[in-house]
């Protein structure tokens, strides 16, 4: 077990403090999972509602630890060439043309398949991290990638090594802190889940959301933060919503209310700015002034 960098992850409390220093409010359960991921050198898979801070925690950890944040955004069709490494084909083609007369094919081949022609993608960059501080590798929205890509990750996440057939095996000298996130648009494979610790981030309680608002938007008064958190909390309980607002939406909405110099929630203002909270056309259509007033008046 590698000893964590002093002061950053000595205990669960120090993780909470370090994240709080980056204005990231976390619950003890998530902080424990992060602490264990650091101590056990295991990847941490975070699932949860969209806009509730899954990606943000990797950024906060990077800032708190001083490690470089290396991000791999997943999408359908993501493959080894975009995630691990790729050969620099235009340079290889040029080199072949330049030396086709004075080199043999074998010489050319040994020249163009060297590290000089290797384009390093996020996974390889994370493994090549040097120095005492561990880089933070964020593999974002893994559920968007194909199942085959999960297979590619298995070697990286369990052995922290990559095999390039033309060069050999590249092993990490400093194990990166790996955060994987998923919005659960599909179930991830058992093999990948087995290699990870797990945490789930749901919608925050009203108290936690007030704390988040106060940390992220210091100019917001306590009363306004409470009013906003309560309103959004009530909105999230509505069963007729296609998409519930996350914390990211609450923060955007708060910024909009501040920009409009609205210090108290009024039905008219809410309706005008509701597009920042509700991102579904049908939801917007449903939540007209009467329904908003009804929500505001709810105990």
């Amino acid at each position, binding site marked *: 077990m590698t000893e964590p960098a002093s002061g950053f992850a000595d205990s669960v409390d120090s993780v909470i403090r370090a994240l709080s220093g980056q204005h990231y409010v976390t619950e003890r*359960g998530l902080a424990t999972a992060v602490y264990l991921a650091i*101590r056990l050198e295991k990847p941490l898979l975070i*699932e949860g509602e969209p806009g509730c801070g899954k990606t943000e925690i990797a950024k906060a950890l990077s800032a708190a630890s001083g490690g470089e944040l290396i991000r791999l955004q997943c999408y359908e*069709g993501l493959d080894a060439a975009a995630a691990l490494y790729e050969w620099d084909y235009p340079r290889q*083609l040029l080199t072949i043309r330049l030396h086709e007369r004075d080199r043999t094919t074998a010489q050319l081949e040994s020249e163009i398949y060297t590290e000089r022609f290797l384009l390093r993608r996020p996974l390889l960059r994370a493994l090549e991290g040097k120095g005492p501080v561990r880089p933070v590798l964020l593999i974002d929205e893994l559920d968007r990638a194909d199942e085959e890509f999960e297979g590619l990750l298995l070697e990286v996440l369990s052995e922290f090594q990559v095999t390039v057939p033309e060069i050999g095996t590249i092993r990490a000298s400093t194990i990166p802190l790996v955060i994987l996130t998923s919005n659960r648009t599909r*179930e991830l494979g*058992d093999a990948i889940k087995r290699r990870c*610790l797990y*945490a789930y981030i749901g919608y925050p309680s009203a108290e936690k959301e007030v704390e988040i608002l106060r940390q992220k938007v210091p100019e917001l008064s306590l009363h306004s933060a409470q009013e906003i958190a309560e309103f959004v909390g009530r909105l999230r309980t509505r069963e007729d919503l296609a*998409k519930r607002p996350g914390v990211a939406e609450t923060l955007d909405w708060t910024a909009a209310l501040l920009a409009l110099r609205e210090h108290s929630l009024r039905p008219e203002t809410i309706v005008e700015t509701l597009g920042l909270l509700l991102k579904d056309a049908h939801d917007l259509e449903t939540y007209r002034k009467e329904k908003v007033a009804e929500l505001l008046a709810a105990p």
Partner: protein
Amino acid sequence: MNSGTSSPVLGNRLQTRVQGFLDRLRDRGLRSGLAAGVDLSRALQALPILDRNAVREACRATVAKSPAELAVVDRVFEEYFGSFDLPVTPPSEEGKLPQARDRLGRAPSGSTTPAEEREQVEEELHGRYSPEAPAPVPRRVPLASERLRRYRAGARRFRRSVATLPGRRWRAHPVGSVDLRRTARAGLRSGGEFVELARRNRSPRRADLVILWDVSGSMREHTTDLFGLVYALHRVVRRTRVFAFGHDLVEVTQLLAGRSYERALPLLADRLRPTGGGTRIAHCLNEFRRRHESEVRRTSTLIVLSDGWDLGEPSELADQFRRLRGRVHRLVWVNPYAAQVGFRPATAALQVALPYVDLLASPEDFPLPHGAVRRAGVPAPG
């Protein structure tokens, strides 16, 4: 238990407790293997083990792999470690001792633990248990292997017919953009001379299915065919999620995963408890949207297996179908009576759903080489 959780530092007594805890979790259906045991032991070495909350959080982080498993871990933790005295539990704010709990770690009436709350919510979602009602799915329905094979062949045809959108993966193709990687390789083989440009284009996006299977009493006599079809689709299309509904909605995908037809059916029968109260299609669709809509892709094909007998308001059902239709690539309704001579979509539910349905098929259409399922790839009407 296994030796996978053995640790030189963790005391023998606690090690035994941890192993017992993992065994209990396995009894409850969690597939916690050796790796989870090793992780939990290592985690307990890194945490103050007298802090009950820290131990609970370690169990959650290392053993659970989904929100549903988190709830199971919480529940089993309360049961298993609930009888421990908690030396580090702080007294309440008023300086009183923490409330007494019973053997299962349950608080007295009037206050509930988060785990119990989740259990109560689950009870709500699963509907009210009704001993008089017949089980929604019988434990055994024989299906000839030949028929199952034909269902699988039909499912493969169906998979091809709904996978019509271009994906993001590339494939070698005589027509398309230049493939630099293959061009460079070919150039090297011909001594640096680029004789021919290799080309590539996008391969079709894979099919993914969401199946909503009506298991209410009126569908019971069709279980053989419908389960055969559901099973075949789940086996053939890798991205398939299956939900059973009647009075309420329950996801059963995991019960089918990696299991034979004969093994999966009893598990389903055990999971789907008999409920009274009739079919609530609109309610279940609303539940599905509320809990799973964000997980549905615009490339998904939604398949509803139902006879359309519904207790709810047709207008509500129309609203649910209208919303769902905008979220998916194809909407298919499989009605067990659709192949009968003189069949007309007469039920109110079917009538309001038809404008949003791309294909109305019968389970018997699937095994046919040129059955109606071939029409699933045609554009939606209107």
